[in-house]
């Protein structure tokens, strides 16, 4: 879709100072080629979400640089960007369609055009019946779909997703993964997808970036092929075992 790519160049990041200083990321370097999906996995608290905040321009790295399209990411709004979070973070005072349209309005779209686009993307995620519902009237899975529709409606070239399916049940999660895969195929943004779930990373990612314990660096980058994504295949099991071994977990599958 575009020639843009995201590059993390020798990123280090810490919070606090002096004796209270907590190093979160050290010398993190990896690229995400345009139109591909990089799934970041790692132990809890290793700085995966911090990595996304740096890519989104919500914080500045203590050292190193994040480059988007060759330009250093600065603090502040980035109009190429869409984000989805673990908590969908819908504005509770707006209806579902207004929640999706508001980002388009911020980007200067006329009200009618923004609402029409919102309706289109909500239809894509199967929520046409709930355009005028309020977030409090939605289930967790539905709210998450709205969050994804809101991010995609911006037609972002860069999509950052921070454990978007962590708070939904297993059945809904698999359904949402399938829907997201179809949407990513259709719109082909560059994606960084943070998850705890290694199997989710294999199903969705083109590469899996395995982070180490805090202070975290990139422990390994594992490429994922089309065959690996078939949950019933032996190559899926091998990939799962490989990623889990990096995280210090024995899968018990023995590569079979």
């Amino acid at each position, binding site marked *: 879709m575009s020639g843009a790519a995201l590059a993390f160049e020798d990123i280090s990041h810490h919070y606090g100072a002096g004796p209270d200083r907590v190093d979160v990321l050290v010398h993190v370097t990896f690229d995400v080629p345009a139109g591909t999906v990089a799934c970041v996995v790692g132990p809890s608290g290793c700085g995966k979400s911090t990595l996304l905040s740096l890519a989104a321009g919500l914080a500045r790295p203590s050292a190193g640089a994040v480059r988007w399209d060759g330009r250093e990411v600065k603090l502040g*709004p980035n109009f190429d960007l869409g984000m989805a979070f673990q908590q969908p973070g819908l504005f509770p005072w707006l209806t579902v369609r207004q929640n999706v349209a508001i980002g388009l309005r911020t980007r200067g779209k006329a009200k009618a055009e923004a609402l029409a686009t919102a309706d289109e993307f909500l239809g894509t995620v199967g929520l046409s019946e709930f355009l005028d519902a309020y977030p409090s009237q939605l289930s967790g899975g539905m709210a998450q779909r709205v969050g994804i529709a809101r991010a995609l409606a911006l037609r972002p070239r860069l999509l950052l997703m921070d454990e978007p399916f962590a708070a939904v049940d297993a059945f809904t999660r698999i359904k949402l993964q399938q829907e997201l895969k179809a949407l990513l195929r259709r719109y082909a943004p560059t994606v960084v997808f943070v998850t705890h779930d290694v199997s989710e990373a294999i199903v969705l990612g083109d590469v899996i970036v395995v982070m180490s314990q805090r202070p975290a660096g990139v422990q390994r980058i594992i490429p994922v092929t089309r065959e690996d994504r078939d949950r019933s295949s032996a190559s899926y099991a091998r990939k799962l075992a490989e990623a889990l071994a990096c995280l210090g977990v024995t899968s018990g599958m023995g590569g079979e």
Partner: protein
Amino acid sequence: MSRMQREERAPVARYRWLAAWRDRVLLPLVGILLVAIVWQAVVMLYRLPLVVLPEPWAVVRTLAGLLPTVAFWRDVGVSLYEFAAGYATGVVLGVAVGLLLGESRTFRLTASPVIEALRFIVPFAWIPLTVLWFGTSYTGKIVLVAYAVFFVMTVSTTRSIMQVDPTLTRIGTMLGMGRMALALFVHLRAAAPAIASAARAAAAVGWIAVVAAEYIGASAGLGVMITNAATSLQTPTVIAGMIAMGLIGATVSAVVGWLARTRLDYR
């Protein structure tokens, strides 16, 4: 719906109506009646003269006599006008300053000491100065009400802006909002229910302030009516005025609460 279903449902609907009537009419009336009984008993037990404490019925008669008079409604109108002008000014300024305090650390550090010092000076302490500056005109009372309301609104707005879920800020930034848009369209809107609750509390504070200010320096208003009646030892009129003050205050608070609930509370 079958006949059997209708028969099963009918008593439930009737009981629901009865329960609503009991909760909204009967129980509040019982409360008022109990107060009147205790009041009457105290008057009878201690054989209190009319000038010290009149019987409830005497006060009701006086209030009924006041209601058709132009003078009573003129006093009510003056108090309501002073309240409305001061309240609107206090709410607008209080929310604006509270928003700035919540959004800007520099402004918070600069203005907080002044605001903290001023908010502990009760509005009534300003009455002598407002009489000196504005005489017994409406302006002095409006300023006092605005002052009383301002601090309630400022403190609540600041606190609720600072407690807005940071996820909403991140979402707003992701959607491309700058600082001003975040403050106005995300933070202020997210804080609206808390600000609305404060607005209701501020209405009570403002109403008390306007009537209290009229006791001391004014030429018209409910406070003046009560003071004049007290001077001529018309105790039933004093208490009737107090009851009118309470009823109007409760009505104002209910109207503000209703507006806040229906217009601002998204929860």
